[in-house]
């Protein structure tokens, strides 16, 4: 094997090594901005609801929106089932917050109204500015504060 061939192999190897590094950086670059090629996945066809959900009457809240805290932006569509909030993993809204209890509060519908109930939390549940001491009806758009998380009901 001649010196020249070996020199060329050596240079080629280093070039390929750097090309690998550059290719890796290239993968990251497209990774950062997302790939254009993939068309947005079409929304899955909603299966026919077995039992049509009763349309909420006018003036009734339809969803619960997290407006503050780490989970800000989360929305939960309200149905007939109660909503539990807390740190426990089986809660409907799981908040990872040192100021929340594992079973902190409960929201449930009653006669077309949603009621908030504190479940004996350490730091309390606040409806607007006042502490919730017994089950209290929640008006639309009034913030409920649980630890660092703020939620409200919306239409």
């Amino acid at each position, binding site marked *: 094997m001649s010196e020249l061939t070996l020199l060329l192999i*050596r240079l080629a*190897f*280093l070039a390929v*090594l750097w090309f*690998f590094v550059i290719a890796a950086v290239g993968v990251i670059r497209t*990774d950062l901005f997302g790939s254009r090629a993939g068309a947005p*996945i079409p929304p899955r066809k909603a299966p026919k*609801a077995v039992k049509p959900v009763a349309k909420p009457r006018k003036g009734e809240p339809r969803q619960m929106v997290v407006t503050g805290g780490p989970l800000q932006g989360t929305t939960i569509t309200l149905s007939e089932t109660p909503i539990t909030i807390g740190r426990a993993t089986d809660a*409907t809204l799981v908040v990872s917050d040192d100021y929340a209890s594992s079973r902190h509060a409960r929201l449930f519908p009653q006669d077309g109204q949603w009621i908030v109930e504190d479940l004996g939390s350490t730091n309390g549940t606040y409806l607007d500015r006042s502490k919730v001491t017994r089950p209290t009806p929640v008006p639309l758009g009034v913030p409920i504060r649980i630890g660092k998380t703020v939620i409200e009901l919306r239409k």
Partner: protein
Amino acid sequence: MSTPSAELVPLPAKRRVAQLVMLAFAIVIVMGAYANVGLAIDGRVPAGMLTYGLGLGGFMLAAYLVLAKFAPWADPLILPLVTLVNGLGLVMIYRLEQAKMGGASATNQLVWTGAGVVLFSVTLIVLRDHRALQRLTYTAGAVGLILLVSPLTPFLGKEINGARIWIGIGGASLQPAEFAKLALVVFFAGYLVAKRDVLALAGRRLLFIDLPRARDLGPVLITWGFSLAVLVVQKDLGSSLLIFGTFIAMLYIATQRTSWVLIGILLFVGGAILAGMIFSHVQDRFTVYLHPQDPALYDKVGGSFQLLQGLFAMGQGGVIGTGLGQGHPKLIPLAFSDFIFPATGEELGLTGLMALLMVYALIVERGLRTSIAARDPFSKLLAGGLSFILAWQVFIIVGGVTNLIPLTGLVTPFMSQGGSALLANWILIALLVRMSDSARKPPPQAIQDEGMTQVFQR
């Protein structure tokens, strides 16, 4: 937003094809390196090229398939990058074996790589949700401590090359400290998630730094004392530096307080000075570090001979290296384990070493990126800690062999010959892959527009 149409949130792509292409590219580079070694030494392509190349390729294909099945959203770059480093390590060990260097065995290393891939797969398959580790916080801490002190137990422990960091099981020797570091990172992450508010918020402000409360200092002091004890009793400078540095870095990630870093550095400098005054082996390292070119030290047993041979080798390599198979890396003692970096430096030169360091940097970057994208504090800390420990380890050993910092015996991750380190690092990569999978996975899509059903992500 110019288009009011209800456009879905852009999903992060899986990038499986990119991953496979990069993986194949890494394998091709490794096979090219084998061929280069053979051409330079015997003038022909070595018979081992296909065995080692296809062996490595087969292992990595298996790892890729497991990853594609059990962690489909995982980062596409982590596995190819690790493959390249692991493969280059194999080539260097093969090359040293060809040069008749005692102790170097590429076959052993390939078998260990296979075992590492098996552990990688097992970790991915068994650990479906890494948050299960959070429940094992204190168990992991206890396991870590037991593993760390296990070489000191009378019948199990073995002393090799002056450091008592081995345990012998049957005929094989393992370095439990390599696995202990993983357990300890899990422990630190779990502990800091629980305590970080207290560590960050309680305390007094003095001049520019926030002084923590004395009782919050407890765990830091305990870790410090413990890593010093490891240093003293096992004479393992590298591991103690690794553990203490990682703890401080994770404390910083958790609390974002510079004061903890300052306290950590002060404690470390204090501990190092203390250890240097009391223990002769620490002092020796310092003397070698300060005066590597002293002829008396060069000739002394355990002096600067090894370090200087490494430096000479890198000097010989220069900018583009002597070429694979054309240097004399076997003149460096332990060139296949602790000193594989200078050995590679001689043959690939500065250009090659920089590429290698870039690959390490990219692995760490992917890990830190996972940490940023992670959705819960435990994953953030765990991913940050695991990436940091990898980066820190590379820094300690590369800094050591280039005489930037005093030399402490640590392996170069994935390159050095040695089973325990390779296995432990493959588990580390599996954890990172698992976390990047859960961080990049898109949130569950609603099955229907409205109704009784809610889709949640656990």
